[in-house]
């Protein structure tokens, strides 16, 4: 159907000059004629559906912008957004594109300083709340699924405006009890870990929950005391994500995906021209043609029962590895032959979360040819023989009183020599195993709420560990087993989910869950800046690469399903890296 309408469009374009391919350009000023650089200019049809694209560019030093080769301007709209500014002219937020008599398509904007509550990221509301253990635990536990405050959190908080502090605290505690149930609703279609199969009392039991009684106490108290109850006026809030790294060549493409899917991660391999997504909700991989985004094809994971694919990485052989949240199975998919290989020798309840990656950000083998995985269900590490499928488990530390699944062993990275695998735990620490003996060779506890998550390693064997709850990043020397540096990220409430080292640029990209922005940490200079994203509720997990162009790709996956945008996102930083 989409293809037919595309064809009709092409045919009608032959006779109608209106919908010829066009360049949109314009200038952004401050009203006094001064240019406003780094304004996000986004073009789409104003009501995006799966397969539609939003294209975003940024105004340059002169305030000029240009979007080249728009397929058609018919039905298309443009909007301008810059954090810290309000659009004065034109008056409507979205402006239809209109060609002038000579065929030129222009739209100028006038901006003035001001804070627009509608376009600011969630994290700015956290900024006015006191820092410390309460905020860190609230971010770690709540922003694991959605932004803090999400739209629904804001709706809820508004209703608390006239309550006493005591009642606000008790309301937020009830909300955490409610979340114990919601956790059971986030599994894939057909999930056995769902309200359909688990009885109410079990779901509500703090001992079986990701939210234990201590979480309820600390987070309920913190939100009750400090959470704002009015979100209509952002005047006086501060937007600080560090230097803005965009320029006139920066380009962002958001390819919109079905809202009924929960596509949390994306993988690309030079072996395949397509984008591959992990659709946790629908138990499938999801293929999109970047040159024709309306071409979206589902590949159900061939397995008896639900799988919930959630982690997706390529390897040097052109395979895509898929770790599943359910079924205790990991799959390897060949995007060229479309053949699957199932690794199903994991013990029951293991739940492989991450496969250890190397400095190329690819699934890699250790010195004995084995892969390493984090088993989030059991608080264990596992090695996997990719030839035989044999799995071996290894114990890792668990704090007294903590439960294995709540410890949440998470990210993993393999040192360059293949002799050590490093891992994180969300409520635990950072450790390393000797890949030959399976012995723990390094361990460091993290204070509650820090939340070390997905990690990256570089060619010097330095490890980058984002701290989700406190908005920091630790850099470890994995050869010497010592902390080199703790980096405060620009926004302590950004909820940095992942670090990805970029060999071409020698930078670390950081995917944030709560700031509608990505960060770039320059390894040589230590400087940090950001690239803002065009959508709100732009909940990020991993970032990966197009290894041919050096462009970045990520995915929006705000939970629950439908509560935020569902899109693949390409980011060309506009820095012309040398790709080799």
């Amino acid at each position: 159907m989409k293809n037919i309408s595309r064809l009709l469009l092409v045919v009608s374009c032959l006779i109608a000059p209106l919908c010829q391919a066009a360049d949109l350009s314009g200038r952004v000023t401050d009203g006094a004629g001064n240019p406003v650089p780094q304004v996000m200019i986004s073009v789409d049809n104003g009501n995006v559906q799966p397969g539609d694209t939003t294209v975003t560019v940024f105004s340059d030093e002169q305030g000029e912008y240009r979007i080249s080769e728009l397929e058609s301007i018919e039905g298309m709209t443009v909007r301008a957004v810059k954090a810290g500014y309000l659009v004065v002219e034109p008056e409507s937020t979205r402006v239809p594109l209109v060609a002038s008599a000579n065929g030129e398509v222009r739209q100028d904007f006038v901006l003035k300083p001001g804070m627009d509550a509608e376009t600011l990221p969630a994290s700015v509301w956290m900024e006015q709340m006191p820092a410390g253990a309460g905020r860190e635990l609230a971010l770690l536990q709540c922003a694991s699924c959605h932004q803090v405050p999400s739209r629904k959190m804001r709706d809820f908080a508004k209703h608390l405006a006239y309550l006493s502090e005591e009642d606000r605290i008790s309301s937020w505690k009830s909300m955490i009890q409610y979340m114990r149930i919601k956790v059971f609703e986030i599994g894939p279609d057909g999930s056995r870990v769902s309200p359909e199969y688990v009885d109410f009392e079990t779901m509500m039991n703090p001992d079986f929950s990701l939210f234990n009684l201590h979480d309820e106490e600390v987070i309920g108290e913190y939100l009750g005391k400090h959470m704002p109850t009015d979100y209509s006026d952002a005047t006086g809030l501060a937007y600080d994500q560090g230097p803005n790294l965009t320029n006139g060549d920066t380009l962002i493409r958001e390819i919109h995906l079905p809202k009924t899917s929960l596509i949390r991660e994306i993988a690309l391999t030079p072996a395949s021209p397509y984008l591959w997504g992990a659709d946790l909700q629908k138990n499938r991989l999801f293929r999109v043609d970047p040159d024709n985004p309306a071409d979206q094809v589902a590949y159900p994971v061939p397995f008896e029962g639900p799988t919930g694919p959630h982690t997706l990485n390529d390897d040097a052989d052109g395979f895509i590895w898929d770790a599943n949240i359910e079924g205790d199975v990991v799959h390897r998919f060949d995007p060229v032959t479309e053949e699957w290989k199932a690794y199903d020798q994991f013990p029951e309840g293991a739940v492989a979360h991450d496969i250890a990656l190397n400095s190329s950000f690819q699934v890699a083998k250790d010195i004995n040819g084995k892969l390493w995985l984090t088993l989030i269900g059991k608080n264990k590490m596992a090695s996997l023989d990719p030839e035989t499928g044999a799995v071996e488990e290894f114990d890792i530390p668990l704090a007294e009183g903590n439960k294995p699944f709540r410890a949440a062993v998470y990210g993993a990275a393999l040192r360059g020599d293949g002799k050590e695998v490093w891992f994180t735990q969300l409520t635990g620490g950072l450790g390393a195993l000797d890949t030959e003996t399976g012995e723990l060779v390094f361990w460091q506890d993290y204070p509650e709420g820090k939340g070390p998550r997905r990690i990256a390693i570089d060619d010097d064997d330095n490890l980058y560990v984002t701290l989700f709850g406190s908005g920091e990043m630790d850099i470890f020397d994995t050869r010497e087993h010592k902390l080199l540096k703790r980096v405060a990220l620009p926004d302590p409430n950004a909820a940095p989910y992942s670090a990805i080292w970029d060999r071409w640029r020698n930078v670390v990209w950081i995917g944030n869950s709560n700031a509608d922005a990505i960060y770039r940490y320059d390894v040589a200079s230590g400087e940090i800046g950001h690239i803002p994203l065009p959508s709100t509720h732009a909940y990020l997990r991993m970032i990966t690469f197009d290894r041919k162009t050096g462009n970045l790709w990520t995915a929006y996956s705000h939970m629950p399903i439908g509560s935020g945008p569902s899109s693949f996102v390409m980011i060309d930083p506009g820095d012309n890296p040398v790709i080799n």
Partner: protein
Amino acid sequence: MKLKILLATVIVALISACSPSAEQESQTPDQVGASDAEERLTDVETPSAIKVTEASVIEAQLEDDLSKLGCFACHAVDEARIGPTYRSIAVLYRQADAKALLVNKVINGGGGIWGPMPMISHPHLTPEILNPLIERILALPGE
């Protein structure tokens, strides 16, 4: 706790046994489940509590339909949870022709009636989805 699970199983089993499709298929997994439940039923201390009247079947079905929208986390027909029971909502609102008010409350959230804890908003739900369900809640018997 165990009693409740068994009750739920029995009610579901009875509903499926009453439905034509289950009658037509002779050896379905549903029926295996039903006989399982019947066997386990002997453990229950107070079997006299299980009176499957027509009303209770209707109520179980209502609870099931509402559960699919996630309502069960806070509400049940008779069991006190985070929010009020459906039956107490019916008793309070059925005189007042309050269907529109309740639909609005589900979509936008709100509070102040049953205690300090407000209801969370459900912006993804529509009046079309909610109207028939609210009608069935308001039709629950009780005083």
